[in-house]
């Protein structure tokens, strides 16, 4: 295994074989073949799986809501509701809204109709996520998920004193992640910078306010009220469940694109991109997290972020089986495959958030052209 990856502050050209050395057409054709094979094979098991997940999620939700009537079971109630919200958000909402189950023809699992249990209206999320983020993955200046307009997550984002607060902003974004996602489409940073006016976001306001009203009403008014004198405990429990979900989703999502070894791309190098190059960019722009089967389910299989970015519309339960093949293809083509356990990926993301808070030092810049012996390299040898 000779593949090498680079540290965070290198662009992709130096990582793991440059595009000129790789036959991107053949590479793309191999990935297309995986895609076709899996799509042709979709059927009963995939349908049964997602229905089981939905049933489980509904079960946890009802149990969570009910357990709030039993004061001593408060921690259990919060745990059940948290699990429900995480499943709703990740394995169901995220994946259904990618159109992964549209082929079933079930309106309850259709990307056009599904609405999820978070503050962000699905319609707006599908635009900023499915279209913008998944099409322009890790292209600086086009993929707004790089730093979400708040953080500095890449060397090529020019340093400003504002970014000294990077760790603080990241922490706040983590705690209020569903709010961050909900407000993502408004592009506050661009409004502040005068590149966009408030009036230009007008078409988003109504949907956003309605969703926020509905979510707030049920979690912070109706369900607490239904428990009568236990109102404060239920309110706190619901808020805590949302918080736990926020922390979990933020961390999983940040591990998907920001650990060391993940590459970013410039707009120039993605002009007139071939299909093979698109796959190549998706691959180098994502990172996986290793873990148990239950862990993968709780991440919505976004622990297989690489496979998700290669095939965003294939049911996520297929990613583990696809991953074996993708990894093998990467080895043959000498392309880095970024994967590591949660602790390591989290640590790597945290270090990046802190380091990029500071201005680039001269030494760092010099290191850019040199492949580093970063931790990720070792996981590739596995």
């Amino acid at each position, binding site marked *: 295994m000779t593949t090498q990856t680079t540290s965070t502050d290198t662009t992709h050209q130096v990582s793991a074989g440059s595009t000129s050395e790789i036959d991107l057409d053949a590479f793309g054709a191999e990935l*297309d073949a995986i*895609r*076709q094979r899996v*799509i*042709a094979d*979709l*059927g*009963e098991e*995939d*349908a*049964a799986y997602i229905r089981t997940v*939905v*049933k489980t999620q*509904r*079960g946890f939700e*009802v149990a969570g809501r009910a357990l709030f009537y039993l004061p001593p079971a408060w921690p259990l109630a919060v745990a059940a509701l948290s699990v429900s919200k995480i499943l709703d958000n990740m394995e169901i909402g995220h994946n259904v809204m*990618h*159109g992964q189950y*549209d*082929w*079933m*023809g*079930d309106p*309850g699992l*259709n*990307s*056009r109709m599904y*609405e*999820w*249990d978070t503050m962000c209206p699905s319609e707006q999320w*599908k*635009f900023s996520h*499915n*279209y913008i983020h*998944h*099409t322009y993955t890790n292209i600086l200046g086009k993929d707004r998920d790089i730093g979400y307009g708040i953080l500095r997550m890449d060397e090529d984002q020019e340093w400003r004193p504002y970014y000294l607060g990077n760790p603080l902003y990241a922490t706040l974004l983590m705690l209020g992640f569903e709010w961050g996602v909900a407000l993502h489409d408004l592009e506050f940073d661009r409004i502040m910078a005068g590149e966009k006016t408030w009036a230009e976001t007008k078409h988003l306001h109504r949907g956003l306010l309605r*969703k926020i009203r*509905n*979510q707030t*009403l*049920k979690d912070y008014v*109706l*369900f607490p009220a*239904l428990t009568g004198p236990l109102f404060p405990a239920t309110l706190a429990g619901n808020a805590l469940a949302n918080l736990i979900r926020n922390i979990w989703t933020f961390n999983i999502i940040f591990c998907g694109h920001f650990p060391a070894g993940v590459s970013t791309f410039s707009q120039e190098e993605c002009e007139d991109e071939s*299909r093979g190059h*698109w796959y190549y960019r998706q691959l180098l722009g994502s990172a996986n997290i290793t873990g148990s089967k239950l862990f993968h389910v709780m991440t919505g299989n976004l622990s297989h972020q690489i496979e998700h970015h290669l095939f*965003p*519309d294939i049911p996520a339960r297929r990613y583990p089986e696809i991953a074996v093949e993708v990894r093998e293809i990467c080895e043959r083509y000498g392309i880095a495959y970024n994967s590591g356990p949660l602790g390591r990926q989290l640590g790597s993301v945290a270090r990046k958030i802190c380091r990029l808070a500071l201005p680039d030092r001269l030494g760092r810049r010099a290191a850019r052209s040199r492949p580093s012996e970063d931790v990720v390299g070792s996981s590739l040898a596995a």
Partner: protein
Amino acid sequence: MSITGTLLRSRALAALTSPHGVDRYLEQVNPMWAAHEVRARIVDVHREVDVPGHPPVATITLQPTSTWRGHRAGQHVQLGVEFDGARRTTRVFTVSSPDSRHGDRFTITLRANPEGVVSRYLVERATPGTMVHLSQAQGEFVLPDHVPDHVLFISGGSGITPVMSMLRSLQRRTHRGRVTFVHYAQSPDHQIFAAELEEIRRSGHGIDVHLLHPELGDPALSPAWLGRLVPGYRDVPTWACGPAPLIEAVQAAYDGSEALRVEYFKPPRVRASEDGSTGEVAFSRSGKAAPNTGASLLEQAEALGLRPEFGCRMGICFSCTSRKTEGTVRNVLTGEESSLPDEDIRICVSAPVGDCAVAL
């Protein structure tokens, strides 16, 4: 039920189950429980006629959920079947039983079209207990509340079903006027509801039944023949349903008379040549159409000046998903072809193969 129903449809419950909706919870407990959606359990499958070498016909009795608002004779319903527990496919079927009310059982009668996956499934494989998905009853091909003194029904083949529903409703309403019923079938063996029609014919009550089999020498439909059967038929309120050639003959005979109401099955559109770039692409909502160039539907729509919503233009983001109502499309990424009617497709990676209609 009404109190439960009111509660289930209340705004309070909707707020509590937001964003998923009440039905997404109820269905987990019992598929027959619903607040808004309509589903049904098949309670009986009855073979009507079974001529060797010809597709069998069956009447299927459905017990709908309490959300079924009932139907008026002549209406149809969209019925969705889940194949292998995964893919839901929906087709339209006419209700054959008399007018139904809230939550009433009703029947559909259908022929197992050799190429129709849903009709074949329902006739040949469905068993009592099977759940199906329904729409509310739809369609304007119905009897008025005050039925005229003399009405004429003309049907052909399985077009008999809506007319039969009307006939049965009239019997139940004890309609006192005159009814002339004309039906064309391939042969006496193909006659659906033969025993019931014979019973109606014998017992009279002003219902004049004419079962015709042109292959056996019975007269085909013509103005002269109709004029002898029902003098001044052009002024008699008439409901006609059947295959396109029959409806064309009826329309010619009525010569634009407002007394005629028709419903007919659309003939299938032409299938394309090898390279696919033949036929016509129609965008039904905007009413635009053009010869098929073989390019993606998104490009062809844009070439006609339409501005459909799109995103990635490479099939990943689903922004451009639209409803294809007719025809065949080829997925330009996988080469896979699909001919299902009423199918959601990503128009940026779908190219029409021959004639194609999209709701844009």
